[in-house]
């Protein structure tokens, strides 16, 4: 019987939640790496036993852990994220320039095309690639060396490269997003990069049409329509029909268009999920009601999904990497909260139930659909 494995990164360790295709009864494994912040855990789409975890602490720095047995055991692999050449400088909060300095890994993205290749998005913003299963890392420095690099500035969470999207059939093409620089695209495997922020409007910067400076929170796409991109920006939910060349707003009837994650349904390219959050200072849902919003029209028209979610006195946040969908015939949707709950829906969001309620604050949620 097909299985389901949810990989959860939290402030104080990682957890592996396992179920069958029905997704009703769950077993909980963890905490793995207890006491360490695990920013992201993600499995290879080519080898379901291969799982990577980004483990860090303010005391002892960054480690990368790898499992080759589906999460039963992990081994530390390479953690040398040295920038290519002289790192240069970027904008600091006060407008001065500050040298690029590695802080931590925000996101790990195993390749769709090679089981030994994995990408890492790091703070200060840069993209690294390993071609030996995480043993060694090399920066794809064309991104950081883009002409606009000295203009990049950190968002509240740091100058982080947090989103890495792969084109489903073209290994030359990648998309990344950086807070608060914007979205970028490469068509030559990361050698050269192009900002793709036309159409974004950000009230937090003086020139709303600026090529960079936009606080993009998350991107997603559906493999059947790889040129259609969805974006949750700091404020605004956006859509592009031309691989990011231009964007238009699809916030429509959302109660607020601030938020962090955005995910596309596994089988319906026009079905999109967001979790509206009150504002950039009120990092909790409007009215104390935790609602996922679903659009079946690629945005603009949204419906609140509330069945099984707390509808009073709920003041948690859902971070950018903390929502995912599975590939089962009845698409499952999952998200984790700053309050330590991981919610699952096995029916595309119509009904929800918590898998766990009391984990440390959830940083990331990924899901594997096992054969």
């Amino acid at each position, binding site marked *: 019987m097909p299985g389901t494995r949810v990989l959860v990164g939290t402030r104080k360790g990682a957890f592996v939640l396992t179920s069958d295709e029905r997704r009703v009864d769950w077993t909980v494994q963890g905490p793995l790496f207890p*006491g*360490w912040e695990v920013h992201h855990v993600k499995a290879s789409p080519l080898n379901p036993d291969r799982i990577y975890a980004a483990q860090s*602490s*303010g*005391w*002892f*720095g*960054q*480690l990368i852990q790898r499992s080759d047995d589906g999460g039963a055991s992990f081994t*530390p692999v390479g*953690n*040398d994220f*040295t920038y290519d050449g002289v790192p240069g400088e970027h904008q600091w909060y006060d407008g001065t320039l500050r040298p690029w300095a590695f802080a931590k890994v925000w996101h790990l993205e195993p390749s769709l095309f090679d089981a030994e290749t994995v990408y890492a998005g790091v703070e200060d913003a840069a993209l690294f690639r390993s071609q030996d299963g995480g043993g060694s890392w090399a920066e794809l420095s064309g991104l950081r060396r883009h002409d606009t690099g000295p203009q990049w500035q950190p968002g509240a969470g740091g100058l982080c490269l947090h989103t890495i999207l792969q084109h489903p059939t073209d290994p030359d093409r990648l998309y990344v997003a950086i807070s608060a620089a914007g979205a970028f695209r490469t068509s030559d495997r990361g050698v050269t990069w192009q900002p793709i922020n036309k159409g974004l409007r950000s009230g937090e910067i003086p020139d709303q049409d600026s090529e960079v400076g936009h606080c993009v929170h998350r991107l997603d796409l559906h493999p059947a329509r790889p040129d259609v991109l969805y974006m949750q920006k700091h404020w605004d939910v956006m859509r592009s029909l031309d691989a990011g060349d231009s964007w238009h707003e699809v916030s429509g009837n959302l109660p607020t268009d601030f938020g962090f994650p955005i995910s596309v349904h596994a089988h319906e390219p026009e079905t999109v999920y967001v979790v509206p959050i009150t504002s950039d200072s009120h990092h909790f849902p409007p009215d104390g009601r935790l609602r996922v919003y679903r659009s079946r029209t690629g945005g603009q028209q949204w419906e609140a999904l509330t069945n099984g979610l707390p509808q009073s006195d709920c003041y948690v946040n859902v971070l950018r990497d903390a929502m995912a969908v599975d590939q089962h015939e009845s698409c499952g949707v999952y998200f984790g909260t700053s309050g330590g709950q991981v919610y699952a829906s096995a029916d595309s969001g119509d009904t929800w139930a918590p898998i766990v309620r009391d984990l440390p604050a959830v940083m990331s949620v990924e899901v594997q659909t096992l054969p």
Partner: protein
Amino acid sequence: MSGSVRVVLPAHLRALAAVDGDVHLDVVGTPTQQSVLDALEARFPVLVGTIRDRGTGLRRPFVRFFACGQDLSHDAPDTALPEQVGRGAEPFLVVGAMAGG
């Protein structure tokens, strides 16, 4: 001169290095922070980057070095450690600083 230096690691680093108790290291010459940490990292490569910055070699900000009741964190890396550490009578402590409330 060479001797066996006893190093006490914080729990998280003991777990990473897969050791249960103190670590005993053979250090050539008069032990210093640098020579002890070089020997520690040579024995346990997984600890590279966890105590000192990989690029600069500087102590990570929230790591402290104690020995013989003294905070040696701000000593130059090539400063000789107390003689008691060099002969294994007192441990060299790597400590995660109090931080985070």
